[in-house]
């Protein structure tokens, strides 16, 4: 039985989530902006057709937006993550093997499923569309890399009606199709590698598929050997059922307004560190160091520019937010320079190990470690139950002036009692 892996990808996910609860946005050009309403991070088809590009600062597009009546929404991550969880959970009913690849993409193992796979893909599409209201595309192929491409084809080529199964095509038909796709679309081929590939005559996906794997591997990186094999239909990458624990945990955001005050930066750093600490404990890990960075706004070219970062190692791995904060603040005060208008700060927890693998040391203070563990557990429990930020370190401040700007965020329809969708009857 040939291997069959499906990649299910939600179309314009953030915009689609907004449309579930605001049906009047259907058919209109809609974009969702990143934190602080900075850049476009999701576009409806109508917005794409108007030529709006991803990752472009929003203020540069306000004119076009006004002319075409484009609706711009602040990102509403509470809504997106809830709907994503629903999509992923529903998808898991369609296959014994699932890898949730990102907030809006999931691989499914279809090998052994005897229904016609194209029909099965349509069934998946219909189920997600009806039960949650999110449109999806399905690509099916013998390897993950090909499944990604099949998904790309299903989106771009209306002939496939949003489900494309490479396994159902003849070899020639597939090769003709692959010849029409640029090599940059292949999963794992970076932007900077494309020109190098073109230099040696590899322009389309088909060119790459027919290239000698070993020589490419030697010339670029071993990854290319794997990519070529995957393009030829040999699955080299398996589905990872459980996401591996992260080796780095970052929390960074830009501020609602520029600030040059150290106390503001301190509050922001404590708040980001708290968030990173929560994530760390969620995956049952400990970290041995924390990276702190601050920067000014690079788009304001006339302002004096400054950016700096520092790694603060910890004496021993821990998961105590208070210890991270102490280290982070120490680092921040070392890199802070007055007289600059700062736009962004961030922290990254590094040297991460599983909590269970933390070595005992001769000078361990067992009692204070138990106390710290108990306190962090109680904090996480309360914040889980009563909403994030219910219990926090005072250093975060109570009314932060630097907090994020989300001027046009929709309601949190599925996670807040006070913000449910209203039906007029």
């Amino acid at each position: 039985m040939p291997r069959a892996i499906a990649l299910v990808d939600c179309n314009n996910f953030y915009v689609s989530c907004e449309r579930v609860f605001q049906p009047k946005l259907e058919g209109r050009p809609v974009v969702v902006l990143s934190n602080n309403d900075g850049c476009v991070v999701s576009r409806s088809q109508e917005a794409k057709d108007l030529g709006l590009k991803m990752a472009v600062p929003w203020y540069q597009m306000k004119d076009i937006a006004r002319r075409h009546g484009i609706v711009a929404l602040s990102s509403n991550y509470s809504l997106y993550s809830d709907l994503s969880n629903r999509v992923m959970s529903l998808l898991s009913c369609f296959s014994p093997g699932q890898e949730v690849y990102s907030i809006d993409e999931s691989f499914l193992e279809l090998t052994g499923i005897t229904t016609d796979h194209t029909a099965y893909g349509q069934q998946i599409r219909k189920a997600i569309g009806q039960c949650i209201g999110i449109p999806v595309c399905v690509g099916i192929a013998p390897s993950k890399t090909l499944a990604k491409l099949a998904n790309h084809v299903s989106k771009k080529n209306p002939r496939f009606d949003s489900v494309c199964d490479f396994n159902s095509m003849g070899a020639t038909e597939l090769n003709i199709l692959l010849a029409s796709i640029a090599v940059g679309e292949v999963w794992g081929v970076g932007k900077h590698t494309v020109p190098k590939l073109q230099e040696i005559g590899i322009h389309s996906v088909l060119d790459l598929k027919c290239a000698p794997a070993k020589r490419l591997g030697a010339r670029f990186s071993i990854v290319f050997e794997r990519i070529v094999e995957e393009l030829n239909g040999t699955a080299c990458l398996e589905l990872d059922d459980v996401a591996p624990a992260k080796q780095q945990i970052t929390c960074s955001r830009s501020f609602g307004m520029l600030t040059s005050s150290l106390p503001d930066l301190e509050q922001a750093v404590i708040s980001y560190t708290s968030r990173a600490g929560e994530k760390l404990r969620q995956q049952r890990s400990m970290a041995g160091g924390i990276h702190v960075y601050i920067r000014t706004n690079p788009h304001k070219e006339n302002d004096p520019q400054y950016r700096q970062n520092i790694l603060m190692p910890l004496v021993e791995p821990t998961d105590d937010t208070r210890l991270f904060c102490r280290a982070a603040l120490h680092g921040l005060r070392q890199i802070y320079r007055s007289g600059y208008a700062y736009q962004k700060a961030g922290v990254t927890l590094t040297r991460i190990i599983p909590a269970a693998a933390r070595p005992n040391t001769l000078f361990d203070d067992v009692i204070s470690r138990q106390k710290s563990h108990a306190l962090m557990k109680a904090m996480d429990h309360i914040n889980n139950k009563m909403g994030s930020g219910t219990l926090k370190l005072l250093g975060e401040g109570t009314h932060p002036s630097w907090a994020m700007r989300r001027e046009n965020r929709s309601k949190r329809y599925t996670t807040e009692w006070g913000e449910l969708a209203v039906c007029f009857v």
Partner: protein
Amino acid sequence: MANLNTDFPNPVRRAAHSALLSLTHPNKSMFERQRALLRKAVPAGFPSPADDYVERRLSLDEHLIQHRESTFFMRVAGHSMRDLGIFDGDLLVVDRSVPATHGCVVVAVIDGEFTVKQLLYTPQGKVLRAAHPDYPEVAVTAEHDFSIWGVVQWNVHRL
């Protein structure tokens, strides 16, 4: 030191208590924790005869939600569904996965807005019927931008 019993508002206190409780028994399940709590209430150290019969308490979620992924809550505004027991401010439990059959109460989208009505399939086509004498029936025509969003499974009404 802050006093947990007096210095914090009620919900915080409750959450803190349950957090502390879970700390005293870090490896026990919710079920066992409740048993432990029960046992504490018996003063003389005599084991409660009910100990072996403690079960998980009933949950309304289980009762009201058949399909977790496709069930959403919505708020009612207006009076047109009064005679079916749906009032202004009520909380609707809406399931998107169940088919909208003749006579069921649906959340429909008409021209981009949500509405709640009884759905009827008639020889002339779909009809949305209100449950209030002052509101006329609406026949769904091709001019309407119409779709069914979900089927109302329950109405939660505060007395």
